[in-house]
């Protein structure tokens, strides 16, 4: 007989109620959003009356998960950046040169003088003046190799050294490159996150994509340009020895030197040694402050290794100038007055208070380890997003109303059951989206509208089957039962194939397309659930109450 065990009934009703309860906050989107923001602030230790009032907008015992709105609905900026990991190889080779020079210079009687040759940025080429010492030089440089610091590259050495006559070629090993790439990307991710957080936007999404890409999505950012400004302020800080000062930017210098302009003195240039004494990576803190004369300045502090290097250098070079270089501009080139042992110092220059504050923030956020190339950028204005939401909502309501009318005209009371299930279905989709914190995009709304159309399919399959079974006349109860039983295989096959496409879309797609796949996939699951369980439950309740002798479907 037509029967569903009480346990199952309770389970079905509970599932619907939980799903709908999870969907409810979306009806009060602004209110709940304010509540959530306020609660987050209060949890962070902030508290004031306005926040408390916002937090009280929504009762805390109710679910407060919301469907995230995608950039195309909320407006915001989207950037896909490629991290130029090869930049780091060049920097590594640069820092290796002093070590190579020192180790070879120690054996000058065997290898002769050491000079650096021009080469590609990720290769270090060194010439020795006594070719017969090449074998020994090779040994010495190989002695500088360190094991690669990563799990996958364990056991491998970080450099590959080869000799060709008097020229030694040093490159990074593949394992070291892989480990470097990984580290570079992690650093870049972290720094981008900190810089965007510093700008104080809501829910930025910063994700790694593939081997060397970072996807940045920031709702509420005015434009991709603004976002680039936040991220792109690189703040590459180095402290480099000064060779000389000049007014000719095209002055010819040694391969180990470079010419950089002065920031506060237009027309002035400094010839600097390329290899920095200390870099910004070893900086642990930077604060805006004032120098003895009351001019804005920035206080900074190094980590222990940075402090040691800085201390040693200042001890050995008292009286010599050295340059503080930020993003290839010399901020200032003070003369070392004394040994600075503690690892902390002060950058002075002609700053305004605002500039010194900005500089401190930039220094604190750290330097990006490598340049970013932007492969893709999208800006969507908030009005366009709101228009899309309104249009999508209207279309969904009209579509739903039309489907309801059509179903009731076609199936009468059973059509009504199907439309109740359809309403629950849409609620469940939103509940599920809120629960998993999925993002709703414009194609996602289209997915919901499509689901509204297709969700009745499972019901239609069942109802048509019941009609057929009624013709072979075994009484309405049996017909309903057989209808469900025999339509099941078609329902499952049809929906599993659609689910397969949704899964593939989700895996392959990104952004809006993935949003579409999410709603389509969830819609399939909820519509099968509502068709097989919810409408059936409604029909069983109705049937048990009325006990009709005949039914019309």
């Amino acid at each position, binding site marked *: 007989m037509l029967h569903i065990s009480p346990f199952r009934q309770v389970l079905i009703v509970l599932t619907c109620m939980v799903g709908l309860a999870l969907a409810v906050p979306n009806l009060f989107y602004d209110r709940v959003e304010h509540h959530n923001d306020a609660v987050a602030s209060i949890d962070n230790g902030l508290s004031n009356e306005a926040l408390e009032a916002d937090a009280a907008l929504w009762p805390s015992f109710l679910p407060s998960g919301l469907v995230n709105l995608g950039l195309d609905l909320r407006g915001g900026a989207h950037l896909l950046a490629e991290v130029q990991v090869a930049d780091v190889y060049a920097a590594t080779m640069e820092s290796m040169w002093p070590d190579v020079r020192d180790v070879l210079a120690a054996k000058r009687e065997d290898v002769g003088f050491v000079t650096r040759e021009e080469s590609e940025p990720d290769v270090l080429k060194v010439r020795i003046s006594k070719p017969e010492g090449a074998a020994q030089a090779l040994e010495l440089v190989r002695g500088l190799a360190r094991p690669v610091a990563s799990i996958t590259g364990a056991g491998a050495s970080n450099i590959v050294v080869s000799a060709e006559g008097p020229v030694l070629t040093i490159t990074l090993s593949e394992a070291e490159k892989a480990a470097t790439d990984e580290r570079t990307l992690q650093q870049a991710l972290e720094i981008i996150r900190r810089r965007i957080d510093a700008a104080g936007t809501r829910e930025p999404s910063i994700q790694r994509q593939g081997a060397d890409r970072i996807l940045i999505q920031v709702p509420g950012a005015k434009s991709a340009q603004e976002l680039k400004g936040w991220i792109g302020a690189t703040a590459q800080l180095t402290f480099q020895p000064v060779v000389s000062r000049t007014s000719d930017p095209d002055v010819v210098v040694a391969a180990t030197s470079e010419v950089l302009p002065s920031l506060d003195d237009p027309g002035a240039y400094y010839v600097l040694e390329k290899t920095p004494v200390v870099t910004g990576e070893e900086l642990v803190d930077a604060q805006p402050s004032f120098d003895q004369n009351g001019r804005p300045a920035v206080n900074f502090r190094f980590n222990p290794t940075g402090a040691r290097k800085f201390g040693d250098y200042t001890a050995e070079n008292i009286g010599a100038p050295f340059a503080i270089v930020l993003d290839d501009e010399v901020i200032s080139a003070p003369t070392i007055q004394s040994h600075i042992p503690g690892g902390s110092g002060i950058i002075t220059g002609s700053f305004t208070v605002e500039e010194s504050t900005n500089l401190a923030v930039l220094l604190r956020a750290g330097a990006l380890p490598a340049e970013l190339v932007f492969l893709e*950028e999208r800006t969507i204005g908030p009005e366009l997003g709101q228009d*899309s939401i309104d249009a999508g909502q209207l279309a969904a309501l009209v579509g739903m109303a039309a489907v309801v009318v059509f179903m009731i005209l076609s199936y009468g009371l059973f059509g009504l059951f199907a439309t109740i299930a359809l309403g629950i279905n849409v609620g469940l989709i939103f509940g599920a989206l809120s629960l998993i914190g999925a993002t709703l995009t414009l194609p996602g709304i289209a997915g919901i*509208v*499509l689901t509204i159309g297709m969700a009745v399919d499972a019901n*239609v399959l069942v109802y048509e089957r019941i009609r057929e079974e009624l013709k072979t006349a075994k009484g309405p109860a049996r017909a309903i039962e057989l209808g469900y039983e025999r339509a099941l295989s078609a329902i499952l096959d049809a929906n599993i194939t659609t689910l397969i*496409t949704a899964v593939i879309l989700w895996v392959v797609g990104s952004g809006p397309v993935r949003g579409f796949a999410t709603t389509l996939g969830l819609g399939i699951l909820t519509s099968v659930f509502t068709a097989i369980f919810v409408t059936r439950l409604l029909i069983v309740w109705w049937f048990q109450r009325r006990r009709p002798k005949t039914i019309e479907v």
Partner: protein
Amino acid sequence: MRLRLVPDNTNINFFGYAKVTFGGSVVLLVASLVVYLFMGLNFGIDFKGGTTIRTDSTAAVDVAAYRASVTPLGLGDVTITEVFDPTFADDQHVAMVRIQAQEGQESVTSETIAKIEAALQAVDPSITFPSVESVGPKVSGELIQKAVLAVTGAIAAIVIYIWLRFEWQFALGAVVALVHDVGLTIGLFSLLQIKFDLAIIAALLTIVGYSINDTVVVFDRARENLIKYKVMPLIDVLNHSANETLSRTLMTSGTTLIALIALLVLGGDVIRGFVFAITWGIIVGTYSSIYIAKNVVLMLGVKRDWSKEKKPTGNQFMDIDA
């Protein structure tokens, strides 16, 4: 009184006009291929790289003036199209400015965008830029690969599933129907030169999912009927199955189309291409599951000895069950 799209107990011979229907589809498919080869697709920036800027203004769009202002910037190929939509306000005039990918750079630089925006603002001070999207050639190349992979992958996965659940002839019938639907959609987009971007790929996959859904329902019934009517000729079994499921097929297509048409008219211009593709695909998909998939199964024939018995003999009543 109930609304019935299809009268009870229809007995339409779906193979009656096979020459017209199936043949017609083959002709259309070939035509789509020809159109595609000669006209190509109007690839959006997702697949071709470049920049699109959406402009919104209270003054009427003057395409010639827009073009004249942007041309001196020397950005290469610039396309400007005005956008019309029933959801726009009366004094809302929208246009899309599209610029080709720039030599030697990935996504467009901030300076270039600032220059274009300034040039357009000089023509029309009330102009705003609700969206700016830029895709570099590197990513667009990968996106094409991914898109092709997604569509072929989806079709392959579905064929394998159908092959596991049904006979291989059905899987082949389904795949021919899918190729038909995807082919005709691409043909139409090529013919009308509608912008073909990532969203359209999502639409194609939706079509694949929907069309297979329809096809599977007919196949499921055919499988049931093949067991039920052991000696009925295959052509009659297939016809009978299609007739039995016809009312469901039209009902579901009907509700889906109703919802989609609402979205097509009211959903705004941003997703119109996407919704148009799906709407067209639902129509083609419904048609193909009735007129294409079954024909392929019929041509290939189906082995019907599930019970491992020898061929059924003359008595046509012996195997019919209740």
